[in-house]
């Protein structure tokens, strides 16, 4: 076994002798241009019921026809989560009445989902956590209802938007782990480019199943579902609240009721939405309008071959092959676009460490300040790579490079051009530097005398003065060398 005894271990959550058992259901909205079972558009900005058709409004006789890309995205995500891909998966009808459900049933997958038995590993603070994935299945979203007191109004633009519901095993033990799990899932689907991962806009939604039990007991407590939490920070807070609420109940000798609760972020508490006893009998059965999804090994392999390198593997490679510190590797692989950016810049200059530093400090700082995404950066990765090359070649100093960077950000121009246009190239011409130093020495006779008298510290003053005289463009190594010689000779 591993001898790495210092490896940080997962935390054991202990509140008043209880531990929590948590599972998450994450609904991922797949990034297709048309709906899962009809050719209606999926864009957000459309007018009321503009993105509907007889199919998505559930008119008589209309039929669902599955979108090929939805299946592909589901498989892609499943493979990225290490799932087994079922070669014959089945769409089922989940029957219940609600105005936002135009057909009186939702087409989902029930006993034969497309993906099963996967896992995901991610960092929680300083330790690695592994969570099993029970299943991931395709389904259609419902419409949107808005309430107006005397009536409810319905817009079915959202009805039929493709979702992948990813269900975790009850492996999560702390609120922080739950939030990090959600973030890890988001990172994966964004890496795969199958979802934009935006919780606020609803392109990812999160249901949390929470129960508590006395530490040491095997049996699960009664689970409570917290629905539709719309940020991972709130996932953490909602679960934190819910765990304590459940422990309070149990400690007070009360039974936990199986129910669905909602989280109110303003009050930071959960409240009961409906008891599970009232829950519908969904009468699932295979949808006879859709044939089972049959996949061959070749099809699955074909999709597997298009999978990008995933964040965890990529971070590992950045650390091991490119020699970046673990934390830097993790930050740079937070998003695929960022990792791609870094890697391109590093490729061009051949200096991964420098590229990492520039991206993590200068680029990220400017992006944050200007609220831009990495692919909106005015400085393209090629340009950043070239800037680093200029430094490494000694064409400009590190200090000048910062000036060039500011100019690049402003104008989007190539670093070589900026250096040339602004005359920022580093001066390595010994003749020119000697001339400059002669002038500096001539202008500071008293300091020369001090140096001569043994005050070596004054050397720094001369370096500064010489650099200033060259507007920072003199090669500092040459300045040092020549200055030393001249002073010693003086």
């Amino acid at each position, binding site marked *: 076994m591993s001898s790495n005894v210092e490896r940080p271990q997962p935390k054991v959550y202990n509140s008043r002798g209880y531990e929590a058992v948590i599972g998450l259901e994450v609904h991922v909205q797949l990034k297709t241009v048309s709906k899962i079972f009809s050719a209606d558009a999926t864009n957000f900005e459309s007018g009321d019921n503009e993105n509907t058709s007889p199919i998505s409004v559930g008119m*008589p*006789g209309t039929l669902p026809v599955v979108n090929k890309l939805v299946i592909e995205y589901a498989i892609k995500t499943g493979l990225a989560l290490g799932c087994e891909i079922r070669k014959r998966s089945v769409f089922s009808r989940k029957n219940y*009445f609600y*105005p936002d459900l135009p057909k*009186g049933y939702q087409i989902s997958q029930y006993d034969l989902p497309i993906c099963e038995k996967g896992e995901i590993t991610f960092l929680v603070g300083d330790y690695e956590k592994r969570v099993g994935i029970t299943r991931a299945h395709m389904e259609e979203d419902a419409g949107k209802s808005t309430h107006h007191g005397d*009536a409810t109004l319905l817009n079915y633009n959202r009805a039929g938007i493709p979702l992948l519901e990813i269900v975790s095993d009850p492996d999560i033990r702390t609120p922080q782990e739950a939030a990090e799990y959600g973030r890890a899932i988001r990172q994966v689907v964004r890496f795969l480019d199958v979802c934009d991962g935006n919780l606020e806009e609803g392109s990812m939604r999160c249901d949390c199943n929470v129960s508590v039990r006395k530490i040491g007991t095997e049996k699960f407590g009664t689970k409570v579902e917290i629905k539709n939490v719309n940020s991972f920070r709130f996932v953490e807070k909602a679960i934190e609240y819910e765990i304590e609420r459940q422990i309070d109940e149990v400690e007070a000798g009360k039974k936990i009721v199986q129910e669905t609760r909602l989280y109110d972020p303003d009050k930071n508490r959960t409240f009961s939405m409906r008891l599970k006893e009232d829950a519908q009998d969904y*009468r699932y*059965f295979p949808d006879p309008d859709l044939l089972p999804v049959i996949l061959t090994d070749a099809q699955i392999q074909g999709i597997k071959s298009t999978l990008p390198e995933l964040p965890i593997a990529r971070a590992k490679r950045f650390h091991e092959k490119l020699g970046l510190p673990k934390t830097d590797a993790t930050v740079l692989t937070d998003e695929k676009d960022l990792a791609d950016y870094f890697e391109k810049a590093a490729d061009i200059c051949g200096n991964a460490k420098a590229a990492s530093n520039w991206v993590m400090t200068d680029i990220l700082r400017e992006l944050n300040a200007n609220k831009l995404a990495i692919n909106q950066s005015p400085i393209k990765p090629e340009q950043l790579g070239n800037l680093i090359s200029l430094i490494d070649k000694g064409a400009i100093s590190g200090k000048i490079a910062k000036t060039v960077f500011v100019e690049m950000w402003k104008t989007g121009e190539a670093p070589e051009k900026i250096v040339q246009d602004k005359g920022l190239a580093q001066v390595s011409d010994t003749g020119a530097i000697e001339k400059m130093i002669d002038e500096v020495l001539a202008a500071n006779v008293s300091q020369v005398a001090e140096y001569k008298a043994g005050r070596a510290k004054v050397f720094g003053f001369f370096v500064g003065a010489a650099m200033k005289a060259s507007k920072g463009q003199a090669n500092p190594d040459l300045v040092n060398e020549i200055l030393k010689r001249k002073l010693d000779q003086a």
Partner: protein
Amino acid sequence: MDLLKAGFKEVKDAVTTKKISAVEVTKFFLARTEKLNPKLNAFIKMSDTALEDAAAIDKKISQGETVGPLAGVAFGIKDMLCTKGLRTTAGSKMLENFIPPYDATVVTRLKNAGVVVLGKLNQDEFAMGSSNETSYFGKCKNPWNEDYVPGGSSGGSASAQAARLAMGTIGTDTGGSIRQPSSFTGIVGVKPTYGRVSRYGIVAFASSLDQAGPMVSSVEDAALTLEVICGHDKMDSTTSQKPVPEFSKNLTTNIKGMKIGILKEYEKGVLHPDVEKTYRASLESLKKMGVEFVDVSVSLTEFAVPMYYLISASEASSNLARYDGVKYGFRADFKDLSSMNLDDFYSETRGQGFGTEVKRRIMLGTYCLSSGYFDAYYNKACQVRRMLRDQYVEAFKKCDAILSPVTTSPAFKLNERSKDTLAMYMNDIFTTSTNLAGLTGLSVPFGLSSEGLPIGMQLTGSHFEEQKILNIAYALESVSDVKGKTPHVF
């Protein structure tokens, strides 16, 4: 040209060579409908645009444009099929005012072939019935004797066709709803193989059983209609991609050497003496034509009726959930929406909007899918369904088609069986297994009862083998006792 007798080909040729105009053909049938429909109640809605549509075809012809293979042929359409801009009710109060913004694919294909749609035909409510007596729009009469039912659920199609209110009609068949009324009214009705004809835009009763097909005056007209309506549809992923044969060109009465299966199990059936007589006569005729009879066994047909009721009711309970008073169709009259409880809103609307028979099936289906009963009923029925299908597959290794009566008796009197649902069920014993096994079947008129009512014979064919049963029917038709006989309304 005698439009009361003319086949599609004759009319199409006459229309394209301008011997008669499509408008004249349409006018003829509209006038006939106006005269006879009040007696029969076959049409429940006439198209306002029939003459315009006919004129458009004439215009195309006069401009030398190509027209479809059924140019100028006037059709009536069962009210299960959605027609754009033309009220579609499925025979229910629930859809009394529903005007679809789309055509069923079958209707689109007929229109593209040059068919003029005259109007919509009566039927049992949501096709649930065998006598057209459950229609919200009133009972429909058998033109051979108006005291008798035309059969159902496609009673309006059968009645209109037998009385020649149209040149052709379309029916739907979930458990015999094309074949039984065809038999009762002396017309040719074909239920295609499951997956042969698109279900898009056809109000769903039981999705895994429903198929639309022609109910027409001759086997040739049936073949011509099938050529137009069969084939893969991108709007229905349960349609087969198999090529559609040129059924009409391949028609032949030479069936010498064909193997006709006789089901041992059907011999046990208690047949009305007139049906028995007709059946024996058909065997005799076929023998003369040189066919070979083969005994085959499909022991599970014995259970077909209860299996059929369970599966069709289960699927219907879900298919009919969309009729909820939200998006279209009937809504119970509420004085004040704002004080309405959502469940009451649904229950009142559905309680009032559906007829007794429809509610009975929804109740049965809901029960069979509900938690705790799913395995014992729905799932069990689907397992036995596979066994039944497999028995048929075996049987069809030994024969080209199976011959049997369509029903145990000729048409019965109005009101005679509407109370006795089980007697009505027994009438379905020869037809339901065809749908359960996904096979093709047809009814061809062959004999007359002592009361002068037509009696059809049923031919059942293997999956996608419509041509074989069409040819046998073509041969039987040539020696049929019904040939040349017309209902008294003529």
